[in-house]
């Protein structure tokens, strides 16, 4: 019990450290506050007029909001790869590793801080969406589930980002992960209807995780049919977390002892 409390205290201190750092980097602040708003404005006003929402019958803003929520949270989450690579390339990791704390608390500290920042980023995007005319139709329970889905997505992306950062070790290469995460929603049903895509892309779009996650959010926020997307979303998110966390923990131990 006291060991668990101690570890929780260590984790808390490392999370505070990471959040403080993030608040002091201009890029970090922009990524977490301005960027979500900019993306939302861009989609609704610049692209929105030219894209039809196909058979869903939704207004484009309603159609695209779930994808923008994921982009807003996911991009910052992906940058966690840079943060952990930063710690590895600087000598900071040496000091952290010579402290009497559990090794897992350092990557976990990055993941938890990332979830806090980037769920907040999705929140900014949502506020912008409402200001631009997004009118959700959801019960408090729907909202709670939607929050859980966004949090789960950010958690999964942050865990994968930590894994990626540990694999590549250089901050430049670590940054590449954020592009993958930023562009994945474009190749889903989130930005344009998958039914309008050529066959190959459409197959990819229908089978990659963003599509069911977007469908789940649409169902929760806009009263659309859920179908199997809720279960598929849960499976994807749980799978990504359960695969990346143990491998990241193992890698962290190996990386820092080499």
């Amino acid at each position: 019990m006291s060991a668990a409390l101690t570890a929780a205290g260590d984790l808390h201190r490392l999370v505070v450290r990471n959040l403080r750092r993030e608040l002091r980097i201009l890029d970090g602040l922009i990524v977490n506050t301005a960027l979500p708003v900019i993306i939302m404005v861009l989609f609704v006003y610049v692209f929105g007029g030219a894209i039809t929402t196909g058979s869903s019958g939704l207004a484009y803003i309603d159609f695209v909001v779930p994808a923008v929520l994921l982009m807003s949270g996911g991009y910052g989450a992906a940058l966690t790869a840079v943060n952990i690579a930063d710690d590895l390339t600087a000598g900071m990791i040496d000091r952290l590793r010579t402290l009497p704390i559990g090794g897992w608390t350092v990557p976990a500290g990055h993941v938890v801080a990332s979830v806090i920042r980037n769920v907040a980023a999705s929140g900014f995007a949502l506020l912008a969406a409402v200001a631009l005319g997004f009118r959700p139709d959801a019960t408090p329970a729907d909202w709670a589930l939607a929050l859980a889905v966004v949090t789960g997505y950010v958690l999964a992306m942050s865990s994968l980002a930590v894994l990626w950062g540990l694999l590549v070790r250089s901050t430049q290469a670590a940054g590449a992960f954020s592009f993958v995460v930023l562009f994945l929603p474009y190749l889903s049903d989130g930005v344009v209807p998958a039914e309008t895509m050529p066959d190959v892309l459409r197959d990819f779009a229908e089978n990659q995780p963003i599509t069911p996650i977007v469908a789940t959010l649409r169902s929760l926020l806009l009263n659309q049919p859920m179908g199997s997307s809720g279960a598929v979303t849960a499976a994807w998110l749980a799978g990504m977390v359960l695969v990346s966390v143990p491998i990241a923990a193992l890698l962290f131990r190996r990386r820092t002892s080499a």
Partner: protein
Amino acid sequence: MNVIHSTSFTDAVLVRGLTKSFGSTQVLAGIDLTVPTGSLLALLGPNGSGKTTTVRILTTLLAPDGGTATVGGHDVTREGVAVRRLIGLTSQQATVDGLLTGRENLELFAGLYHLGRRQARRRAQELLERFDLAAAANRRVATYSGGMRRRLDLAASMVSAPRILFLDEPTTGLDPRSRAELWSVIRELLAGGTTILLTTQYLEEADQLADRIAVINGGRVVADDSPAALKRQVGAERLILRLSRTEDVPRARSALGEAETRPGAGEREITLAVQGPDHLRHTLDLLHRAGVVVEHVALSTPTLNDVFFELTAVAA
């Protein structure tokens, strides 16, 4: 204060036959070291000699391939946690967070050593004052000078009041004044009973601080002795005398002894080994009495290169 007591031991660090390879490159080829409790051992060697690898193994950051190493009586591979509770490390790179202030850094590390909030705050303040950083306490570390950063690094290593401190090239890249300041801090820690293992590329630094110097080259300890004994081994300081007239050279050499003197680089120069100020004064007296006019006097101290030349020549 969160002082950690350990069982009594006479040698704070004991290393026997330590080996380590990275791929096909052997970095440590069997290192033996002993650091008595309360003393300072300087590990002296050029880049790539294995100094940092040794420190990383002793601070549990790296696993050795062979040999044994105990720190504070605990085996570094099997009792890593116990070792980490006893030690502090200042490594070559910045091991403090540049985006946090000096105070925030120290409070973070104090917290991670599990001091209570109030204790952590007090400890941070104490260290900021002791390491002359109180005025800059609330500035981000990124704005610190190199000397201030190293002092903060050292302060961070002292958060838990470790009994054994590892300093990996603590003064590399510092200006002479910052270096002298850091030396005086290290002397204070030593006077307070801390055992210190310090690596350096500078013979002068080892000479200034160390009770004992282990010279390391190519992953082996090629000499392990007191600074005085090592210098005797390398040869004393040499006096370089430039005379006013070339024709005085034979007279000067006969006055000082042909065997003891050698021709210098210039045709009016002679050199000889000197042992201390009295010998220097005596030498100049002899020349004065012989009527030799000395135009310029210089002392040449043996350099790290000389040490290596001597030591590797002996080993070969």
